[in-house]
Protein backbone atom coordinates (compact mmCIF):
# COMPACT_ATOMS: atom_id res chain seq x y z
CA UNK A 1 0.00 0.00 0.00
CA UNK A 2 2.72 2.49 0.85
CA UNK A 3 6.45 2.90 0.80
CA UNK A 4 8.78 1.96 3.63
CA UNK A 5 10.29 5.40 3.16
CA UNK A 6 7.73 8.16 3.39
CA UNK A 7 7.91 11.92 3.67
CA UNK A 8 6.76 13.83 6.73
CA UNK A 9 3.88 16.26 6.95
CA UNK A 10 0.16 16.06 6.40
CA UNK A 11 -0.73 19.42 4.86
CA UNK A 12 1.19 18.85 1.62
CA UNK A 13 -0.33 15.42 0.85
CA UNK A 14 -3.80 16.75 1.58
CA UNK A 15 -3.18 19.57 -0.91
CA UNK A 16 -1.86 17.06 -3.46
CA UNK A 17 -4.86 14.79 -3.20
CA UNK A 18 -7.36 17.66 -2.97
CA UNK A 19 -7.89 18.25 -6.74
CA UNK A 20 -8.85 14.65 -7.38
CA UNK A 21 -11.04 14.42 -4.29
CA UNK A 22 -12.79 17.69 -5.18
CA UNK A 23 -13.46 16.69 -8.78
CA UNK A 24 -14.71 13.28 -7.66
CA UNK A 25 -16.92 14.81 -4.98
CA UNK A 26 -18.53 17.43 -7.20
CA UNK A 27 -18.90 15.46 -10.41
CA UNK A 28 -19.13 11.96 -9.09
CA UNK A 29 -20.31 11.47 -5.51
CA UNK A 30 -22.77 14.33 -5.44
CA UNK A 31 -24.47 13.29 -8.73
CA UNK A 32 -24.46 9.63 -7.72
CA UNK A 33 -26.05 10.61 -4.38
CA UNK A 34 -28.56 12.76 -6.23
CA UNK A 35 -29.48 9.82 -8.45
CA UNK A 36 -30.17 7.68 -5.40
CA UNK A 37 -32.13 10.51 -3.73
CA UNK A 38 -34.18 11.36 -6.82
CA UNK A 39 -35.02 7.71 -7.36
CA UNK A 40 -37.18 7.89 -4.22
CA UNK A 41 -39.39 10.72 -5.52
CA UNK A 42 -41.88 11.49 -8.23
CA UNK A 43 -42.05 15.08 -9.49
CA UNK A 44 -45.56 16.47 -9.98
CA UNK A 45 -46.65 17.15 -13.60
CA UNK A 46 -45.55 20.80 -13.40
CA UNK A 47 -42.16 20.01 -11.89
CA UNK A 48 -42.87 22.25 -8.92
CA UNK A 49 -42.66 19.76 -6.08
CA UNK A 50 -41.45 16.26 -5.41
CA UNK A 51 -43.49 13.56 -3.81
CA UNK A 52 -41.78 10.87 -1.77
CA UNK A 53 -42.65 7.40 -3.01
CA UNK A 54 -40.01 5.23 -1.32
CA UNK A 55 -39.15 2.33 -3.58
CA UNK A 56 -42.19 3.06 -5.73
CA UNK A 57 -40.11 3.97 -8.75
CA UNK A 58 -38.26 0.67 -8.54
CA UNK A 59 -41.45 -1.34 -8.09
CA UNK A 60 -42.98 0.44 -11.03
CA UNK A 61 -39.88 -0.16 -13.18
CA UNK A 62 -39.60 -3.84 -12.40
CA UNK A 63 -43.24 -4.39 -13.27
CA UNK A 64 -43.01 -2.21 -16.39
CA UNK A 65 -43.00 -4.50 -19.45
CA UNK A 66 -41.02 -1.89 -21.44
CA UNK A 67 -38.27 -1.88 -18.84
CA UNK A 68 -38.15 -5.66 -18.67
CA UNK A 69 -37.96 -5.82 -22.45
CA UNK A 70 -35.12 -3.31 -22.34
CA UNK A 71 -33.26 -5.56 -19.90
CA UNK A 72 -33.66 -8.50 -22.24
CA UNK A 73 -32.65 -6.38 -25.24
CA UNK A 74 -29.50 -5.29 -23.40
CA UNK A 75 -28.63 -8.89 -22.52
CA UNK A 76 -29.07 -10.09 -26.11
CA UNK A 77 -27.21 -7.08 -27.48
CA UNK A 78 -24.23 -7.43 -25.10
CA UNK A 79 -23.93 -11.13 -25.71
CA UNK A 80 -24.00 -10.71 -29.50
CA UNK A 81 -21.53 -7.81 -29.47
CA UNK A 82 -19.14 -9.77 -27.26
CA UNK A 83 -19.41 -12.85 -29.44
CA UNK A 84 -19.17 -11.01 -32.77
CA UNK A 85 -16.09 -9.10 -31.65
CA UNK A 86 -14.19 -11.85 -29.84
CA UNK A 87 -14.55 -14.80 -32.23
CA UNK A 88 -13.23 -13.05 -35.39
CA UNK A 89 -10.50 -11.37 -33.31
CA UNK A 90 -9.33 -14.69 -31.88
CA UNK A 91 -9.43 -16.30 -35.31
CA UNK A 92 -7.36 -13.53 -36.90
CA UNK A 93 -4.92 -13.50 -33.97
CA UNK A 94 -4.35 -17.26 -34.24
CA UNK A 95 -3.71 -16.96 -37.98
CA UNK A 96 -1.42 -13.93 -37.52
CA UNK A 97 0.50 -15.65 -34.74
CA UNK A 98 1.64 -18.40 -37.11
CA UNK A 99 3.17 -15.96 -39.57
CA UNK A 100 6.84 -15.21 -39.11
CA UNK A 101 6.82 -12.18 -41.36
CA UNK A 102 4.12 -9.60 -41.84
CA UNK A 103 2.20 -10.08 -38.59
CA UNK A 104 3.23 -6.59 -37.47
CA UNK A 105 1.92 -5.05 -40.69
CA UNK A 106 -1.45 -6.77 -40.31
CA UNK A 107 -1.63 -5.61 -36.71
CA UNK A 108 -1.07 -2.00 -37.76
CA UNK A 109 -3.80 -2.32 -40.38
CA UNK A 110 -6.24 -3.90 -37.92
CA UNK A 111 -5.79 -1.24 -35.22
CA UNK A 112 -7.52 1.49 -37.23
CA UNK A 113 -11.13 0.83 -36.27
CA UNK A 114 -10.27 1.08 -32.57
CA UNK A 115 -9.61 4.78 -33.07
CA UNK A 116 -13.01 5.31 -34.68
CA UNK A 117 -15.60 6.60 -32.21
CA UNK A 118 -18.69 4.40 -31.73
CA UNK A 119 -20.88 7.24 -33.02
CA UNK A 120 -18.77 7.55 -36.19
CA UNK A 121 -18.86 3.77 -36.62
CA UNK A 122 -22.63 4.14 -36.41
CA UNK A 123 -22.62 6.70 -39.24
CA UNK A 124 -20.43 4.48 -41.45
CA UNK A 125 -22.60 1.39 -41.00
CA UNK A 126 -25.78 3.40 -41.35
CA UNK A 127 -24.43 4.65 -44.67
CA UNK A 128 -23.69 1.13 -45.92
CA UNK A 129 -27.12 -0.18 -44.94
CA UNK A 130 -29.15 2.95 -45.57
CA UNK A 131 -32.47 1.95 -47.10
CA UNK A 132 -32.22 4.53 -49.89
CA UNK A 133 -28.52 4.90 -50.74
CA UNK A 134 -26.72 2.06 -48.93
CA UNK A 135 -24.38 -0.05 -51.03
CA UNK A 136 -24.84 -3.23 -49.03
CA UNK A 137 -28.61 -2.89 -48.83
CA UNK A 138 -28.70 -2.23 -52.58
CA UNK A 139 -26.75 -5.42 -53.36
CA UNK A 140 -28.93 -7.33 -50.92
CA UNK A 141 -31.90 -5.99 -52.86
CA UNK A 142 -30.36 -7.34 -56.09
CA UNK A 143 -30.15 -10.73 -54.43
CA UNK A 144 -33.84 -10.47 -53.62
CA UNK A 145 -33.51 -9.59 -49.95
CA UNK A 146 -35.40 -6.48 -48.91
CA UNK A 147 -33.30 -4.91 -46.15
CA UNK A 148 -35.12 -2.42 -43.98
CA UNK A 149 -33.75 -1.85 -40.49
CA UNK A 150 -36.06 1.15 -40.07
CA UNK A 151 -39.06 -1.18 -39.89
CA UNK A 152 -37.59 -4.55 -39.02
CA UNK A 153 -36.51 -4.93 -35.39
CA UNK A 154 -34.16 -7.89 -35.85
CA UNK A 155 -32.40 -6.22 -38.75
CA UNK A 156 -32.00 -3.09 -36.64
CA UNK A 157 -30.51 -5.20 -33.84
CA UNK A 158 -28.18 -6.94 -36.28
CA UNK A 159 -26.96 -3.62 -37.62
CA UNK A 160 -26.23 -2.04 -34.22
CA UNK A 161 -24.50 -5.25 -33.09
CA UNK A 162 -22.20 -5.32 -36.11
CA UNK A 163 -21.47 -1.59 -35.90
CA UNK A 164 -20.65 -1.93 -32.19
CA UNK A 165 -18.56 -5.08 -32.58
CA UNK A 166 -16.54 -3.73 -35.51
CA UNK A 167 -14.21 -1.43 -33.54
CA UNK A 168 -13.88 -3.96 -30.75
CA UNK A 169 -12.36 -6.53 -33.12
CA UNK A 170 -9.20 -4.39 -33.15
CA UNK A 171 -9.13 -4.17 -29.39
CA UNK A 172 -9.66 -7.89 -28.83
CA UNK A 173 -7.18 -8.76 -31.58
CA UNK A 174 -4.44 -6.75 -29.84
CA UNK A 175 -4.97 -8.57 -26.55
CA UNK A 176 -5.29 -12.04 -28.10
CA UNK A 177 -2.28 -11.48 -30.32
CA UNK A 178 -0.13 -10.28 -27.40
CA UNK A 179 -1.24 -13.26 -25.31
CA UNK A 180 -0.48 -15.71 -28.12
CA UNK A 181 2.96 -14.22 -28.67
CA UNK A 182 3.67 -14.61 -24.96
CA UNK A 183 3.14 -18.38 -25.08
CA UNK A 184 6.64 -19.93 -25.28
CA UNK A 185 7.01 -21.54 -28.71
CA UNK A 186 8.81 -24.46 -27.09
CA UNK A 187 5.57 -25.57 -25.42
CA UNK A 188 3.82 -25.72 -28.78
CA UNK A 189 6.82 -27.40 -30.42
CA UNK A 190 6.84 -30.06 -27.72
CA UNK A 191 3.20 -30.89 -28.41
CA UNK A 192 3.92 -30.92 -32.14
CA UNK A 193 6.78 -33.38 -31.61
CA UNK A 194 4.38 -35.56 -29.65
CA UNK A 195 2.24 -35.65 -32.74
CA UNK A 196 -0.55 -33.23 -31.76
CA UNK A 197 -2.09 -31.63 -34.84
CA UNK A 198 -2.98 -27.97 -35.06
CA UNK A 199 -6.57 -28.23 -33.81
CA UNK A 200 -5.63 -30.60 -31.04
CA UNK A 201 -2.90 -28.18 -29.94
CA UNK A 202 -5.31 -25.28 -30.15
CA UNK A 203 -7.98 -26.88 -27.95
CA UNK A 204 -5.72 -28.55 -25.41
CA UNK A 205 -2.86 -26.06 -25.03
CA UNK A 206 -3.43 -22.69 -26.63
CA UNK A 207 -7.01 -22.05 -25.57
CA UNK A 208 -6.47 -22.95 -21.88
CA UNK A 209 -3.37 -20.74 -21.84
CA UNK A 210 -5.47 -17.92 -23.25
CA UNK A 211 -8.20 -18.27 -20.65
CA UNK A 212 -7.13 -15.33 -18.45
CA UNK A 213 -7.12 -13.05 -21.51
CA UNK A 214 -10.41 -14.49 -22.73
CA UNK A 215 -12.22 -13.95 -19.44
CA UNK A 216 -10.77 -10.50 -19.04
CA UNK A 217 -11.97 -9.58 -22.54
CA UNK A 218 -15.38 -11.12 -21.83
CA UNK A 219 -16.01 -8.74 -18.93
CA UNK A 220 -14.49 -5.71 -20.65
CA UNK A 221 -16.58 -6.28 -23.77
CA UNK A 222 -19.79 -6.72 -21.80
CA UNK A 223 -19.11 -3.46 -19.96
CA UNK A 224 -18.40 -1.83 -23.32
CA UNK A 225 -21.65 -3.12 -24.82
CA UNK A 226 -23.61 -1.92 -21.79
CA UNK A 227 -22.29 1.61 -21.57
CA UNK A 228 -20.19 2.76 -24.49
CA UNK A 229 -22.43 1.85 -27.38
CA UNK A 230 -24.84 4.71 -26.80
CA UNK A 231 -23.38 6.57 -29.80
CA UNK A 232 -24.02 3.62 -32.13
CA UNK A 233 -27.65 3.24 -31.04
CA UNK A 234 -28.33 6.96 -31.14
CA UNK A 235 -26.92 7.46 -34.65
CA UNK A 236 -28.37 4.33 -36.26
CA UNK A 237 -31.77 3.56 -34.73
CA UNK A 238 -32.51 5.97 -31.86
CA UNK A 239 -33.70 2.91 -29.97
CA UNK A 240 -36.27 1.86 -32.57
CA UNK A 241 -38.14 0.40 -34.28
CA UNK A 242 -40.68 -0.16 -31.49
CA UNK A 243 -37.91 0.06 -28.87
CA UNK A 244 -36.28 -3.08 -30.29
CA UNK A 245 -32.80 -1.57 -29.81
CA UNK A 246 -33.47 0.43 -26.63
CA UNK A 247 -30.70 -0.76 -24.34
CA UNK A 248 -30.70 0.29 -20.67
CA UNK A 249 -28.31 3.22 -21.08
CA UNK A 250 -30.38 4.51 -23.96
CA UNK A 251 -33.51 4.28 -21.84
CA UNK A 252 -31.93 6.33 -19.04
CA UNK A 253 -31.26 8.99 -21.63
CA UNK A 254 -34.62 8.88 -23.38
CA UNK A 255 -36.68 8.77 -20.17
CA UNK A 256 -34.57 11.38 -18.40
CA UNK A 257 -33.91 13.91 -21.14
CA UNK A 258 -36.49 13.31 -23.79
CA UNK A 259 -39.36 12.09 -21.59
CA UNK A 260 -38.38 14.24 -18.57
CA UNK A 261 -39.36 11.41 -16.22
CA UNK A 262 -36.66 12.18 -13.65
CA UNK A 263 -37.72 9.81 -10.89
CA UNK A 264 -37.80 6.81 -13.20
CA UNK A 265 -34.58 7.81 -14.95
CA UNK A 266 -32.84 8.18 -11.57
CA UNK A 267 -34.11 4.77 -10.46
CA UNK A 268 -32.76 3.31 -13.71
CA UNK A 269 -29.39 4.96 -13.02
CA UNK A 270 -29.31 3.32 -9.60
CA UNK A 271 -30.08 -0.09 -11.11
CA UNK A 272 -27.30 0.39 -13.68
CA UNK A 273 -25.01 1.47 -10.86
CA UNK A 274 -25.64 -1.86 -9.16
CA UNK A 275 -25.01 -3.71 -12.43
CA UNK A 276 -21.65 -1.97 -13.02
CA UNK A 277 -20.69 -2.49 -9.39
CA UNK A 278 -21.45 -6.19 -9.66
CA UNK A 279 -19.49 -6.52 -12.92
CA UNK A 280 -16.50 -4.69 -11.42
CA UNK A 281 -16.48 -6.82 -8.29
CA UNK A 282 -16.90 -9.92 -10.44
CA UNK A 283 -13.90 -8.87 -12.49
CA UNK A 284 -11.72 -8.12 -9.46
CA UNK A 285 -12.63 -11.08 -7.27
CA UNK A 286 -13.90 -13.95 -9.30
CA UNK A 287 -11.96 -13.81 -12.52
CA UNK A 288 -8.57 -12.94 -11.12
CA UNK A 289 -8.70 -15.88 -8.71
CA UNK A 290 -10.48 -18.54 -10.69
CA UNK A 291 -8.79 -18.48 -14.04
CA UNK A 292 -5.34 -19.98 -13.88
CA UNK A 293 -3.05 -21.66 -16.30
Amino acid sequence: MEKRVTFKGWLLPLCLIAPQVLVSAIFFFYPAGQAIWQSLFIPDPFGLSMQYVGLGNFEYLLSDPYYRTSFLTTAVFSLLVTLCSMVPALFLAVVADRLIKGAGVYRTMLIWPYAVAPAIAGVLWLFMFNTRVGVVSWYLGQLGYDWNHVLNGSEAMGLVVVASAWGRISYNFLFFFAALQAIPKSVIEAAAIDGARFWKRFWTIVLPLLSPTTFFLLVVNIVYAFFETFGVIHTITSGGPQQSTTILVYKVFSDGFVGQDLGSSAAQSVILLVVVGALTIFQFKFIERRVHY
Partner: protein
Amino acid sequence: MTHPNDPPPGMVERRGLGLWVSHIIMILGVLIVFFPIWLAFVASTVTQADIVSPPMPLWPGDQFYNNYREALLSGVNVPVATMLLNSLIMAIGIAVGKIIISLLSAFAIVYFRFPGKMIFFWLIFLTLMLPVEVRIVPTYEVIAGFGMLNSYGGLILPLIASATATFLFRQFYMTVPDELAEAARVDGASPMRFFWDILFPMSRTNIAALFVILFIYGWNQYLWPLLITTDPKMNTIVMGIKQMFPSGDDWANWPVILATSILAMIPPIIVVISMQKLFIRGLVDSEK
Protein backbone atom coordinates in the same frame (compact mmCIF):
# COMPACT_ATOMS: atom_id res chain seq x y z
CA MET B 1 8.67 -11.40 -29.66
CA THR B 2 10.25 -14.88 -29.85
CA HIS B 3 11.77 -16.56 -26.84
CA PRO B 4 15.57 -16.88 -26.71
CA ASN B 5 15.44 -20.63 -26.12
CA ASP B 6 13.05 -21.37 -28.93
CA PRO B 7 14.04 -23.96 -31.50
CA PRO B 8 14.56 -22.60 -34.99
CA PRO B 9 11.32 -21.57 -36.67
CA GLY B 10 9.59 -23.82 -39.09
CA MET B 11 7.93 -26.55 -37.13
CA VAL B 12 4.64 -24.96 -36.08
CA GLU B 13 4.62 -21.95 -38.37
CA ARG B 14 2.94 -22.36 -41.68
CA ARG B 15 4.99 -23.06 -44.78
CA GLY B 16 4.26 -23.51 -48.46
CA LEU B 17 0.57 -23.60 -49.31
CA GLY B 18 -0.52 -23.10 -45.71
CA LEU B 19 1.52 -19.91 -45.49
CA TRP B 20 -0.28 -18.49 -48.50
CA VAL B 21 -3.65 -19.47 -47.08
CA SER B 22 -2.76 -17.69 -43.83
CA HIS B 23 -1.73 -14.54 -45.68
CA ILE B 24 -4.89 -14.62 -47.78
CA ILE B 25 -7.03 -14.98 -44.65
CA MET B 26 -5.27 -12.03 -43.03
CA ILE B 27 -5.58 -9.86 -46.13
CA LEU B 28 -9.28 -10.71 -46.43
CA GLY B 29 -9.74 -9.92 -42.73
CA VAL B 30 -8.01 -6.57 -43.11
CA LEU B 31 -10.07 -5.76 -46.22
CA ILE B 32 -13.37 -6.58 -44.53
CA VAL B 33 -12.48 -4.62 -41.40
CA PHE B 34 -11.29 -1.75 -43.57
CA PHE B 35 -14.23 -1.64 -45.99
CA PRO B 36 -16.50 0.77 -44.03
CA ILE B 37 -13.70 3.34 -43.81
CA TRP B 38 -12.88 2.96 -47.49
CA LEU B 39 -16.50 3.38 -48.49
CA ALA B 40 -16.82 6.53 -46.37
CA PHE B 41 -13.68 7.90 -48.00
CA VAL B 42 -14.98 7.16 -51.49
CA ALA B 43 -18.33 8.79 -50.67
CA SER B 44 -16.51 11.88 -49.45
CA THR B 45 -14.92 12.34 -52.88
CA VAL B 46 -17.98 12.04 -55.13
CA THR B 47 -21.07 14.16 -55.72
CA GLN B 48 -24.43 13.79 -54.00
CA ALA B 49 -25.84 12.70 -57.38
CA ASP B 50 -23.42 9.74 -57.47
CA ILE B 51 -24.67 8.60 -54.09
CA VAL B 52 -28.42 9.00 -54.41
CA SER B 53 -28.56 6.74 -57.46
CA PRO B 54 -27.28 3.46 -56.02
CA PRO B 55 -25.06 1.61 -56.28
CA MET B 56 -22.50 4.28 -55.57
CA PRO B 57 -19.01 3.95 -57.11
CA LEU B 58 -16.39 2.00 -55.14
CA TRP B 59 -13.47 4.06 -56.38
CA PRO B 60 -12.77 7.71 -55.35
CA GLY B 61 -14.12 10.53 -57.52
CA ASP B 62 -12.81 14.02 -58.18
CA GLN B 63 -14.80 16.02 -55.61
CA PHE B 64 -12.32 15.63 -52.73
CA TYR B 65 -11.37 19.29 -52.61
CA ASN B 66 -14.93 20.63 -52.95
CA ASN B 67 -16.50 18.35 -50.36
CA TYR B 68 -13.81 18.82 -47.74
CA ARG B 69 -13.74 22.57 -48.30
CA GLU B 70 -17.50 22.74 -47.90
CA ALA B 71 -17.38 20.64 -44.74
CA LEU B 72 -14.51 22.52 -43.11
CA LEU B 73 -15.65 26.04 -43.96
CA SER B 74 -19.45 25.85 -43.84
CA GLY B 75 -20.56 22.38 -42.70
CA VAL B 76 -24.29 21.99 -42.08
CA ASN B 77 -25.02 23.87 -38.84
CA VAL B 78 -21.56 25.07 -38.03
CA PRO B 79 -18.19 24.81 -39.86
CA VAL B 80 -16.50 21.50 -39.15
CA ALA B 81 -13.26 23.41 -38.46
CA THR B 82 -14.95 24.83 -35.33
CA MET B 83 -16.05 21.38 -34.20
CA LEU B 84 -12.55 20.02 -34.77
CA LEU B 85 -11.11 22.74 -32.56
CA ASN B 86 -13.67 22.00 -29.81
CA SER B 87 -12.85 18.29 -29.96
CA LEU B 88 -9.13 19.02 -29.79
CA ILE B 89 -9.54 21.25 -26.72
CA MET B 90 -11.79 18.70 -25.04
CA ALA B 91 -9.55 15.70 -25.76
CA ILE B 92 -6.35 17.45 -24.67
CA GLY B 93 -8.08 18.97 -21.65
CA ILE B 94 -9.32 15.59 -20.46
CA ALA B 95 -5.97 13.87 -21.06
CA VAL B 96 -3.83 16.55 -19.44
CA GLY B 97 -6.28 17.22 -16.59
CA LYS B 98 -6.61 13.58 -15.68
CA ILE B 99 -2.85 13.01 -15.82
CA ILE B 100 -2.07 16.01 -13.59
CA ILE B 101 -4.58 15.29 -10.85
CA SER B 102 -3.72 11.61 -10.76
CA LEU B 103 0.08 12.12 -10.76
CA LEU B 104 -0.35 14.29 -7.67
CA SER B 105 -2.88 12.19 -5.81
CA ALA B 106 -0.93 8.97 -6.45
CA PHE B 107 2.18 10.72 -5.10
CA ALA B 108 0.28 11.66 -1.92
CA ILE B 109 -1.09 8.15 -1.48
CA VAL B 110 2.19 6.32 -2.01
CA TYR B 111 4.74 8.64 -0.39
CA PHE B 112 2.94 10.07 2.65
CA ARG B 113 1.10 9.01 5.77
CA PHE B 114 -1.67 11.35 6.67
CA PRO B 115 -4.99 11.22 8.50
CA GLY B 116 -7.89 9.89 6.46
CA LYS B 117 -5.64 8.46 3.76
CA MET B 118 -7.46 5.14 3.53
CA ILE B 119 -10.82 6.91 3.28
CA PHE B 120 -9.59 9.03 0.39
CA PHE B 121 -8.10 5.97 -1.25
CA TRP B 122 -11.41 4.11 -1.16
CA LEU B 123 -13.36 7.17 -2.26
CA ILE B 124 -11.15 7.39 -5.33
CA PHE B 125 -11.40 3.64 -5.88
CA LEU B 126 -15.20 3.82 -5.97
CA THR B 127 -15.11 6.20 -8.93
CA LEU B 128 -13.67 3.36 -11.00
CA MET B 129 -17.08 1.83 -11.05
CA LEU B 130 -19.40 4.40 -12.51
CA PRO B 131 -19.19 5.58 -16.11
CA VAL B 132 -20.64 9.00 -16.86
CA GLU B 133 -23.42 7.37 -18.89
CA VAL B 134 -24.99 6.12 -15.67
CA ARG B 135 -25.20 9.43 -13.83
CA ILE B 136 -26.04 11.73 -16.71
CA VAL B 137 -29.12 13.48 -15.34
CA PRO B 138 -27.71 14.58 -11.95
CA THR B 139 -24.30 15.43 -13.45
CA TYR B 140 -26.08 17.53 -16.03
CA GLU B 141 -27.88 19.36 -13.21
CA VAL B 142 -24.57 20.06 -11.44
CA ILE B 143 -23.07 21.53 -14.61
CA ALA B 144 -26.21 23.56 -15.30
CA GLY B 145 -26.14 24.81 -11.68
CA PHE B 146 -22.59 26.07 -12.16
CA GLY B 147 -23.64 27.79 -15.38
CA MET B 148 -21.17 25.60 -17.27
CA LEU B 149 -23.42 24.46 -20.13
CA ASN B 150 -21.76 25.21 -23.47
CA SER B 151 -18.34 25.66 -21.90
CA TYR B 152 -15.06 23.78 -22.16
CA GLY B 153 -15.01 23.37 -18.38
CA GLY B 154 -18.38 21.64 -18.54
CA LEU B 155 -17.15 19.35 -21.31
CA ILE B 156 -13.92 18.42 -19.55
CA LEU B 157 -14.33 18.37 -15.76
CA PRO B 158 -16.93 15.60 -15.26
CA LEU B 159 -14.87 13.26 -17.45
CA ILE B 160 -11.66 13.59 -15.45
CA ALA B 161 -13.37 12.29 -12.31
CA SER B 162 -12.19 8.70 -12.63
CA ALA B 163 -9.54 6.73 -10.90
CA THR B 164 -7.94 4.59 -13.61
CA ALA B 165 -4.99 6.94 -14.07
CA THR B 166 -4.45 7.28 -10.32
CA PHE B 167 -4.17 3.52 -10.00
CA LEU B 168 -1.79 3.30 -12.90
CA PHE B 169 0.58 5.85 -11.36
CA ARG B 170 0.24 4.30 -7.91
CA GLN B 171 1.23 0.96 -9.41
CA PHE B 172 4.22 2.56 -11.09
CA TYR B 173 5.40 4.50 -8.01
CA MET B 174 5.35 1.27 -6.03
CA THR B 175 8.01 -0.14 -8.36
CA VAL B 176 10.33 2.86 -7.90
CA PRO B 177 13.22 1.81 -5.59
CA ASP B 178 12.91 3.11 -2.02
CA GLU B 179 16.56 4.14 -2.08
CA LEU B 180 15.72 7.09 -4.31
CA ALA B 181 13.34 8.64 -1.79
CA GLU B 182 15.74 7.74 1.02
CA ALA B 183 18.59 9.52 -0.75
CA ALA B 184 16.43 12.56 -1.44
CA ARG B 185 15.49 12.74 2.22
CA VAL B 186 19.07 12.39 3.42
CA ASP B 187 20.09 15.17 1.05
CA GLY B 188 17.40 17.35 2.58
CA ALA B 189 15.38 17.64 -0.63
CA SER B 190 11.75 18.62 -0.15
CA PRO B 191 9.04 16.16 -1.26
CA MET B 192 8.08 18.37 -4.21
CA ARG B 193 11.71 18.61 -5.27
CA PHE B 194 11.86 14.80 -5.25
CA PHE B 195 8.65 14.68 -7.26
CA TRP B 196 9.84 17.09 -9.94
CA ASP B 197 13.47 16.01 -10.25
CA ILE B 198 13.14 12.25 -9.89
CA LEU B 199 9.61 10.85 -9.98
CA PHE B 200 8.21 12.95 -12.82
CA PRO B 201 11.08 12.27 -15.26
CA MET B 202 10.87 8.57 -14.45
CA SER B 203 7.13 8.55 -15.25
CA ARG B 204 7.50 10.03 -18.72
CA THR B 205 6.83 6.82 -20.68
CA ASN B 206 3.79 6.03 -18.55
CA ILE B 207 2.50 9.55 -18.99
CA ALA B 208 2.90 9.34 -22.76
CA ALA B 209 1.17 5.96 -22.97
CA LEU B 210 -1.70 7.20 -20.84
CA PHE B 211 -1.97 10.36 -22.89
CA VAL B 212 -2.59 8.34 -26.05
CA ILE B 213 -5.40 6.36 -24.41
CA LEU B 214 -7.01 9.37 -22.76
CA PHE B 215 -6.81 11.49 -25.90
CA ILE B 216 -8.81 8.89 -27.81
CA TYR B 217 -11.23 8.47 -24.92
CA GLY B 218 -11.83 12.22 -24.81
CA TRP B 219 -12.01 12.67 -28.57
CA ASN B 220 -14.57 9.89 -28.98
CA GLN B 221 -16.99 11.08 -26.28
CA TYR B 222 -20.54 11.32 -27.56
CA LEU B 223 -23.30 11.36 -24.95
CA TRP B 224 -21.83 13.99 -22.67
CA PRO B 225 -21.16 16.66 -25.33
CA LEU B 226 -24.58 15.85 -26.79
CA LEU B 227 -26.23 16.84 -23.51
CA ILE B 228 -24.34 19.93 -22.54
CA THR B 229 -23.53 21.65 -25.84
CA THR B 230 -26.85 23.08 -26.99
CA ASP B 231 -25.04 25.83 -28.90
CA PRO B 232 -23.81 24.44 -32.26
CA LYS B 233 -20.64 26.53 -31.90
CA MET B 234 -19.64 24.33 -28.95
CA ASN B 235 -20.39 20.99 -30.66
CA THR B 236 -17.59 18.48 -30.84
CA ILE B 237 -17.10 16.76 -34.18
CA VAL B 238 -18.06 13.27 -33.01
CA MET B 239 -21.43 14.39 -31.64
CA GLY B 240 -21.92 17.09 -34.29
CA ILE B 241 -22.19 14.59 -37.14
CA LYS B 242 -25.56 13.31 -35.97
CA GLN B 243 -26.80 16.92 -35.95
CA MET B 244 -25.91 17.14 -39.65
CA PHE B 245 -28.63 14.66 -40.59
CA PRO B 246 -31.87 16.40 -41.56
CA SER B 247 -34.94 15.59 -39.53
CA GLY B 248 -37.80 14.09 -41.51
CA ASP B 249 -37.56 12.81 -45.02
CA ASP B 250 -35.04 15.18 -46.58
CA TRP B 251 -31.96 13.79 -48.25
CA ALA B 252 -28.90 13.89 -46.05
CA ASN B 253 -25.90 15.66 -47.58
CA TRP B 254 -23.90 12.44 -47.64
CA PRO B 255 -20.62 13.64 -49.23
CA VAL B 256 -20.24 16.41 -46.65
CA ILE B 257 -21.36 14.21 -43.74
CA LEU B 258 -18.91 11.47 -44.71
CA ALA B 259 -16.10 13.97 -45.29
CA THR B 260 -16.81 15.09 -41.72
CA SER B 261 -16.65 11.46 -40.50
CA ILE B 262 -13.27 11.05 -42.16
CA LEU B 263 -12.06 14.30 -40.56
CA ALA B 264 -13.34 13.06 -37.20
CA MET B 265 -11.32 9.84 -37.53
CA ILE B 266 -8.03 11.31 -38.65
CA PRO B 267 -6.67 12.73 -35.35
CA PRO B 268 -7.24 9.59 -33.24
CA ILE B 269 -6.00 7.35 -36.07
CA ILE B 270 -2.82 9.42 -36.43
CA VAL B 271 -2.26 9.21 -32.67
CA VAL B 272 -2.80 5.43 -32.59
CA ILE B 273 -0.72 4.59 -35.64
CA SER B 274 2.18 6.96 -34.97
CA MET B 275 2.43 5.98 -31.32
CA GLN B 276 1.52 2.33 -31.75
CA LYS B 277 3.98 0.99 -29.18
CA LEU B 278 2.94 3.51 -26.54
CA PHE B 279 -0.71 2.92 -27.40
CA ILE B 280 -0.52 -0.84 -26.89
CA ARG B 281 1.42 -0.37 -23.70
CA GLY B 282 -1.12 2.17 -22.42
CA LEU B 283 -3.97 -0.13 -23.35
CA VAL B 284 -2.53 -3.11 -21.53
CA ASP B 285 -1.46 -1.05 -18.50
CA SER B 286 -4.70 0.83 -18.02
CA GLU B 287 -6.80 -2.33 -18.16
CA LYS B 288 -4.73 -4.38 -15.75
